[in-house]
């Protein structure tokens, strides 16, 4: 049985490589059928904001790529309630079907996985 891995993505989408790296780990792991979860917290929740238009930045479209996670078998997607509220985002209008978790639930979530990495 492969070890389960939780990837915590906590950087904003368009300013540095962290958000892209977290997604690449998730897509690669999903392609190899690893039991994966992904948690968006802190500025990472901005990756899930609706109606982003990155074309003007001439970057690979991270927002579109994120939509592929369920196709790659990564369906356990979580978001930190505190981070979402703090940034004025509506949990109901995020761009992926995510489970919204409070702090206590986040601690329990991390406890359930064999391995955790935070990017």
């Amino acid at each position, binding site marked *: 049985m492969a070890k389960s891995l939780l990837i915590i993505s906590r950087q904003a989408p368009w300013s540095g490589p962290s958000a892209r790296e977290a997604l*690449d780990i998730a*897509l*690669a792991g*999903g*392609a*190899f*059928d690893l039991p994966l979860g992904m948690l968006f917290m802190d500025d990472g929740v901005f990756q899930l904001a609706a109606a982003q238009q990155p074309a003007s930045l001439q970057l*690979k*479209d991270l927002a*579109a*790529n994120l*939509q*592929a996670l369920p*196709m*790659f*078998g990564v369906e356990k997607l979580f978001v930190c309630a505190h981070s979402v509220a703090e940034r004025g985002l509506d949990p109901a209008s995020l761009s992926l079907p995510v489970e919204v978790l409070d702090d206590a639930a986040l601690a329990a979530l991390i406890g359930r996985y064999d391995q955790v990495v935070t990017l």
Partner: protein
Amino acid sequence: MNALTVGEHHIALDKDGFLLDLQDWSPAVAEALAEREGIALSPEHWEVLEVLRGFYQEYQLSPATRPLIKYTALKLGVEKGNSPHLNRLFNGTPAKLAAKLAGLPKPTNCI
């Protein structure tokens, strides 16, 4: 440099035979790329290439094998979206070869 001639057009390819400029793709280009691989494109091939182009349109990336199978099953049904069918059509390496013929970038998460 690796290149393909279709009619009067010279089309640049990378070392693995993928289009350097995705805008160069056309059905005629797909036919020419398939010929280099020893494949004559049938309607069964074409529907998968259309599915792949749809995948890229939606997600802006090329699928690995598992997502290709899943997405094809979603669009064409499980009798088309399965590993034996896709392997038979695309010489046993569907994610890589079908992406090439559909004019997509080389898949990165692929064995």
